[in-house]
């Protein structure tokens, strides 16, 4: 057992004056009487109980000292359990902590629970909040008052947080300092499935285990590169309630409703709308009425005005290439030849190199290399051209979007050994026909064949492929998202794993941060004793 206020134990020194007063105080008064015979009865009773008379005063003194000890222990605030080492406190600040199903918000309940662990005289503590990256608000301090104030001033973030990085940081600190980690959370989020994250962590759960929440799971708008005036709006809805929801979803564009729908069922539900808005656009999604978590009941975004994508074709005159770009209203195409006249690259433009290679360290949003004659940063040319029939298209590849492989005729293509970082979008018998690297800047795609040749340019796939490539190489579609990962449904599917995975300390405690407070028991004992002592005091003068 340890004490949260050990300085109070000095009050035990009061036992000395209590004992001194008790022993030195003249208990028996001398009284002269006219005739002692009138007191013969009571004096006989005293003689007959001489043994108890001797014990009565020491027993009374012992009871007085016991009362003093109980009160001092209560003031010292004893704590049962592991409380000796430093504390590493982790506060979950994810958006779901804004739910108001914990007598105030969940974040407030969690902050209060952690603040209750801090007292004057408590060991040094550290405070970390979840986030990307996690934030260490208090590196190491003994200022309980200041840290409590900081805790209670925290607000929930606007997005979900993965607590694993914060917990890993906390565990490392606790291991280095010999302390323990206490994590206050509502247990919501995919990270709660990771038992390893919670190993050795004492978890305090806040919030209702069965919340009812409906929220916007997604809200985004984007313009197609081929037709920037067209806007696609996506909205998603999810709920944790099992029964039918009772929310109304409103989608507004520039303040005018484009959709009002009564949401029924438990979700999830997603829908897209298409509008024409060449200018800037304000979009808003609202779920009414608001519920326990207001953060996911409203979303808004602004889409900037449409602008044309610049495409620079570094190629000798090619009618097929010019024709396909002219057919894209969202494209502003230009041709440059010879390649030496290309002085510098436009980081916002897509460059099509046909019969040329880009200079070293070329700046562009994306590059499309059409059947390069030699290898380069993209890989080695190993042979060809050979007739190749496409037999594989990666369905997740944007370059292969809408391509129907079975409709593609065999076409002459060179053989390439792509760079290790490239991915194959289209292949023929394992030989890449289209391969790309879009995870870095600038993005690049290599076509092992010349799409401008009639063998391909006459096919209906030609404009689709070119539009896909241009759009994908641009890399930054004109879009707006409300917030990454809006899904804030409060389902606690993984709560059991949180409860099972916590280890060390006192385990998971819903709500209250500390074990049953022995202070209350001590005060209760002292109160019962004091009442009993007062009640029997007048009897202690009798035998």
């Amino acid at each position, binding site marked *: 057992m340890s004490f949260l206020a050990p300085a109070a134990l000095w009050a035990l020194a009061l036992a000395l004056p209590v004992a001194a007063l008790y022993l030195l105080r003249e*208990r*028996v*008064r*001398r*009284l*002269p*009487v*006219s*005739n*002692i*015979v*009138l*007191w*013969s*009865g*009571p*004096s006989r*009773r*005293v*003689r007959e109980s001489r043994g108890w*008379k001797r014990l009565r005063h020491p027993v009374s003194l012992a009871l007085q000292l016991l009362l003093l000890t109980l009160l001092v222990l209560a003031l010292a605030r004893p704590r049962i359990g592991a409380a000796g080492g430093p504390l590493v406190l982790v506060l979950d600040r994810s958006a779901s902590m804004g739910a108001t199903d914990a007598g105030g918000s969940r974040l407030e309940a969690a902050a209060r629970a952690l603040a209750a662990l801090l007292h004057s005289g408590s060991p040094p503590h550290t405070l970390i909040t979840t986030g990307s990256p996690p934030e260490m608000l208090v590196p190491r301090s003994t200022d309980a008052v200041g840290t409590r104030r900081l805790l209670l001033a925290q607000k929930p973030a606007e997005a979900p947080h993965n607590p694993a990085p914060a917990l890993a940081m906390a565990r490392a600190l606790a291991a280095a300092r010999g302390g323990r980690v206490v994590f206050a959370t509502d247990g919501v989020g995919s990270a709660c499935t990771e038992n390893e994250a919670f190993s050795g962590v004492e978890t305090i759960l806040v919030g209702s285990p069965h919340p009812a929440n409906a929220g916007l799971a997604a809200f985004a708008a984007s313009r197609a590169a081929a037709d920037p005036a067209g806007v696609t709006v996506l909205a998603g809805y999810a709920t944790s309630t099992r029964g039918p929801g009772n929310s109304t979803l409103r989608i507004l564009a520039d303040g005018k409703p484009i959709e009002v729908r009564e949401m029924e069922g438990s979700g999830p539900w997603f829908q897209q709308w298409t509008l024409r808005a060449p200018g800037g656009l304000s979009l808003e999604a609202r779920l009414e009425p608001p519920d326990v978590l207001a953060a996911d009941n409203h979303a808004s975004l602004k889409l900037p005005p449409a602008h044309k994508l610049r495409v620079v074709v570094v190629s000798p005159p090619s009618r097929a290439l010019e024709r396909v770009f002219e057919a894209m209203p969202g494209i502003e195409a230009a041709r440059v030849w010879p390649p030496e006249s290309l002085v510098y690259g436009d980081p916002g433009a897509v460059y099509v190199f046909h019969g040329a290679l880009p200079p070293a360290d070329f700046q562009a949003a994306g590059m499309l290399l059409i059947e390069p004659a030699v290898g380069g940063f993209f890989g080695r040319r190993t042979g060809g051209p050979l007739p190749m029939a496409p037999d594989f298209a990666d369905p997740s590849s944007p370059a292969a979007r809408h391509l129907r492989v079975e409709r593609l005729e065999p076409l002459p293509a060179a053989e390439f050994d792509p760079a290790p970082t490239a991915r194959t979008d289209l292949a023929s018998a394992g030989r890449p026909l289209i391969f790309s690297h879009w995870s870095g800047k600038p993005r690049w795609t290599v076509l092992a064949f010349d799409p401008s040749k009639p063998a391909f340019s006459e096919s209906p796939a030609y404009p689709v492929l070119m539009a896909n490539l241009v759009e994908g190489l641009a890399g930054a579609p004109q879009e707006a998202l409300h917030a990454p990962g809006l899904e804030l449904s409060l389902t606690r599917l993984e709560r059991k794993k949180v409860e099972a995975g916590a280890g060390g300390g006192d385990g998971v405690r819903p709500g209250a941060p500390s074990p049953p407070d022995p202070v209350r028991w001590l005060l209760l004992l002292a109160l019962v004793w004091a009442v009993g002592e007062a009640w029997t005091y*007048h009897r202690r*003068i*009798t*035998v």
Partner: protein
Amino acid sequence: MPAERRGALRGGGIEFSEYRAFVTGDDSRRIDWHAYARWRRLVVRLFVAEQDLHLHFLLDCSDSMGAGSPPKFDHARRVLGGLAYIALGNMDRVGFTPLGGGADAALTPARGRHRFASLVSKLESARARAGRTRLAAEVSRWLAARPRRGMVVLVSDGFGVGLDDAAEALDRIRHAGHDAAMVQVLSPDELEPPPPGEYEMEDVEGGPPVAVIVDAAARREFRERAGQFLAGLESKTAAAGIPFLRTFTSEPPGSALSRALTWA
């Protein structure tokens, strides 16, 4: 000059008392011939002999008389002095004896108002420090000196050796042929138990201290015993026809004297 007090003796006074048959040796001049004419019997007239009243005041000088605030002894002396003054004014012979005091502290019975000064002097010099006094024994010691028969007024608080000591002393006075009376002097404090607590009670007349725990039961018991003691003394004196006056130190002496005059 004889005191104006009827005596118990029959003698040659002028007040007719009764007739008696003539016997050989009676003075023939005392034969009532009118009565002979009526009854044809020889009878003699007897007359009441007027004599002096000897009033003996016995003052209890035990230590218990010094208790109280104001002390009972002072109140007792005042009441005694007042009674003595009245008696001297009636030409009675008044004597004073402090029980437990020496012979030189006593005053032999004598009449006359001039005796009052002497009595006062004796009262002033008396002290309540005779220690533990057995009233009956002190009265017996006084009776051994064969004082002239009269009225003996015992002024005491009644607290002697045991609660019956005063009643026994009065009995001895009566058995010695005296008329007895008692003035009991008490202090209101000594009839009220002390507050609850632990005490070592000491009898003011001596003896080892006694441990007493005063609680509700003890207080109740004390009041009962004190009530029994007071009632017992009253009933015994009433049964014996002994005039009894109880006075408290809180009562003005004059009020006590007024009540005492009803004894006459």
